[in-house]
């Protein structure tokens, strides 16, 4: 530089002065980098982790775990064809979970410091009272290996923000090129790398690293007085290979094309109709029965599916599974957040209820094995029974046949989410893109409407199941914590369900 502006001179001086003031930092290429890691931020040793668990169980208890986590998240937002925000942050800390029978104590700290974690253990331990059962950890914690389902070939951490912005601009351009009626496109890309360690009173220690990418595209179309919104969501436990080939362009196009189709949408009808759920509408099962099969609701007596193992709870065409052992899906993992190996659990087989989804606490209470469904949003929450990748297996019928066989009804193509009251079995989920079926043909596009019904009743009314298969990413909220999930299913028909339209 031949001339140093006052500002840049001051900047240089400022950083140099800061470097002197703060031990352990070195100025390199104009940037401040840590010279070494300070002892205070080293994670605990295995022995220290065990001693935290012993403290956690010092007043009694049937189970305890220590969950340490470091998670890096980047988010980039695009609107009006430019970057409106870039965010990056790290969360790091540990939580101690103590279970005493049906009771749960939990405390967490935003620190990996053993002293802080021991304090959490003391706080969480208060839930137990010394007269109850005690569990002892025999011997040192044993490091466990496990099957890896999740792999990534191009780590997210190696990709620059500039490279990600370029991908998003391709999405934006592709969406806008669908039609001059596309007036707005907003895009959000978030990626996460999560490192966690789980030490449990079962005597095990597990460590794992998981990536996650979540892409959301909204497109807005406007023509005369009509306007409509189209959405595309995609997510995977992958690295940057997620964006291979024309995937960015395809994402933008799908959102914009849905917005264009919905410009012509008319009000949905009102009343009971046959509804053909397109492949990918698995959210229906997530709400209609999924939550009702989480074992904590069973223990609490707050689900209509309690005490019904062995009974027919759905049409004999329905076989339903849940599990984390898939390679790319958003709901996948190698081990759950209590260290239990991922697997596929059959929940309903040909309409018969086979079992529930468990975490350590519910499995012990119901004297059965955990199913790898113990999940938590982060170290700030205890693990509870949660779904992961929930899916209905495909049948034999060609999907077009299902529409042909429906003289009047609704064809539901894409969904926005739903809710359930597991105690009464009442559930609802919302349509974002749907069409009328008239005389076995797909006709008029319909504005979004809710479907509502009783889970057990609706499941019995599934009368046609197709041979295709697809799914959507989602984020499931329960007890104030959110976990990533997917729901998959083939095209299938519900013979009768209430549609909340206006026409």
């Amino acid at each position, binding site marked *: 530089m031949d001339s140093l502006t006052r500002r840049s001179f001051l900047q240089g001086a400022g950083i140099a002065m800061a470097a002197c003031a703060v031990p352990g930092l070195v100025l390199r290429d104009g940037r401040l980098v840590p010279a070494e890691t300070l002892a205070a931020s080293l994670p605990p040793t295995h022995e220290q982790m065990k001693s935290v668990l012993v403290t956690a169980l010092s007043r009694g208890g049937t189970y305890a775990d220590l969950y340490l986590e470091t998670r890096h998240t980047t988010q980039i937002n695009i609107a009006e064809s430019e970057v409106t925000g870039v965010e990056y942050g790290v969360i790091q800390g540990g939580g101690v979970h103590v279970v005493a029978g049906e009771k749960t104590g939990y405390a967490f700290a935003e620190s990996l410091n053993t002293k802080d974690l021991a304090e959490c253990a003391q706080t969480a331990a208060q839930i137990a009272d010394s007269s109850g059962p005690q569990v002892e950890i025999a011997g040192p914690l044993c490091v466990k290996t496990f099957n890896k389902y999740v792999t990534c070939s191009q780590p997210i951490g190696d990709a620059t923000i500039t490279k990600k912005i370029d991908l998003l601009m391709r999405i934006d351009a592709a969406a806008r090129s669908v039609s001059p009626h596309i007036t707005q496109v907003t895009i959000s890309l978030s990626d996460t790398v999560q490192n966690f360690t789980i030490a449990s009173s079962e005597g095990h220690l597990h460590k794992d690293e998981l990536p996650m990418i979540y892409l959301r595209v909204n497109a807005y179309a406007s023509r005369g007085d009509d306007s409509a919104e189209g959405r595309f969501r995609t997510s995977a436990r992958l690295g940057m290979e997620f964006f291979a080939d024309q995937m960015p362009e395809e994402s933008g196009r799908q959102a914009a094309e849905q917005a264009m189709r919905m410009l012509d949408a008319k009000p949905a009808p*009102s009343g009971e109709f046959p509804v053909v759920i397109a492949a990918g509408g698995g959210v229906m099962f997530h709400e209609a029965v999924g939550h009702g099969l989480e074992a904590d609701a069973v223990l609490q007596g707050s689900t209509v599916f309690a005490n019904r193992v062995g009974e027919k709870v759905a049409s004999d065409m329905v076989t339903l599974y849940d599990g984390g052992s898939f390679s790319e899906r958003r709901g996948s993992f190698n081990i759950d957040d209590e260290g239990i190996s991922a697997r596929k659990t059959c929940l309903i087989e040909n309409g018969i209820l086979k079992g529930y989804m468990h975490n350590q606490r519910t499995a012990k209470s119901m004297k059965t094995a955990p199913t790898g469904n113990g999940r938590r949003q982060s170290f700030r929450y205890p693990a509870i029974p949660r779904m992961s990748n929930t899916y209905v297996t495909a049948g034999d019928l060609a999907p077009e046949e299902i529409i042909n066989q429906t003289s009047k009804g609704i064809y539901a193509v894409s969904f926005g989410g739903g809710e359930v009251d597991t105690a009464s079995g009442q559930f609802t989920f919302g349509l974002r893109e749907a069409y009328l079926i008239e005389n076995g043909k797909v006709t008029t596009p319909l504005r979004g409407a809710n479907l509502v019904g009783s889970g057990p009743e609706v499941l019995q009314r599934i009368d046609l199941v197709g041979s295709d298969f697809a799914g959507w990413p989602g984020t499931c909220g329960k007890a104030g914590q959110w976990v990533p999930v997917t729901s998959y299913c083939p095209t299938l028909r519900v013979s009768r369900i209430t549609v909340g339209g206006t026409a």
Partner: protein
Amino acid sequence: MSKVDNPVELASRIVDVALRAGASEADSYLRLSKNTNLSVRNGEIESIKQSNTVGLALRVTINGATALAHTTDTGQIGLMKLAMQAVDMAKILPKPKDPVVYAEAVENLTGAHPDPALAGESMDAKVSRLVAIEDAMMSVSGVTGSGGAHYSEADGETVLVNSNGVELYSPFSHLELSAEAYAEKDGESYTGGRYIEASARRHLKDPELIGKDAGWRAVSQIGAKQVPSTRASVIFTPYTGWTVLSCLAAPLRGDNVAQGRSYLADQMGKQIAASAVTIIDDPTMPDGPQHRAFDGEGVPARKITMIDGGVLSSYFTDLSSAGKLGVQPGGHGLRGSYNSKPAIGTSNYYLVAGDKTPESIIKETKRGLLLNSLAGWWVGISPVNDAFSSAVTGFWIEDGEIAYPVRSTSIAGSLREMLGSIDRVGNDLDFLAPTTTPTFRVPEMAISGV
């Protein structure tokens, strides 16, 4: 546990570091919170969760481009890393058409008042409150099971400092209380619940009343069935009416309006609702659950009338959208958590009470549905599509009298038509939730059952 002795000094220091590292403008947002979550079921503690948290976010702007970095590590190295990360990101971004605007300093802007008694309340006292709620709930005849009584409390401080000289500090307290009851009869199960939010314990309703309400909501649904599909009146209650205001917030967001994706974009000054409809957002209300003195950008909070006698009077604005729309900033740029960038949101947001009693509104309804609860209404929220559709439970009204309980039924309508036709507004407004309404009636909506 890392404790922050001087939060204002810390927040100021990180802004200085950012400026010296190359930022032309910056702001920092620090949130400290002591949190307790407690559940009681069948008379005993079922779970306790506790934590002491700290979170810091730094926004920096360089050549008009802005980046945000966040951390929970407020030690020296953590702060240095934070500043470098934010600066490194902002440096490589292209300059946007509309750079982020930072708030100007305002004289004499002080923080909110938390509940000073909160810190002193023992765990036993919190447990006793929940036990009392559950007891009252179980005492309602017909209640057969408890989903528990739950309490959560956050007690803390927020600080906002920026390079324009804004230096704001505010303590806060926030409480949530809920209870859930089950009523089983003839092989069917019904659920009833009650949920309350407040910024101080003195605003919490009498525990007995909360428990009894949850119990009654379950029991009153016994025997609920679907209604035949029809068009009829729908009476929204305080427990359900807030969903309509929530849906309305989407097209009222200033960023949606400014970017041409709102069905209320060209409606300022026009009659968009019935004259009985006045809707206000007021963060300054001391009794409101979302009481604050300034927003997440440092703009002073003010009471704003969004819709006045049915006429659209204001959008929800943050600094950026206020600038684009040429209006005074509304102070609606909120940070949902320490690591969120400011985004437009509502505070104590309500439909102003009318003078009718809820009983008289029911009596004057020939046929319709009195709502008890809604589900899934939020799926369709959109700033460009005003379709409102929700699963409901409630009571069918015939000739001004409640005839039977209803569930597995849906209501639907156009939000603009609903607002335009509201013909009764009740006098029963309370502020036990951040978005709230009195009872009000929409004379006709589609009701879907069998």
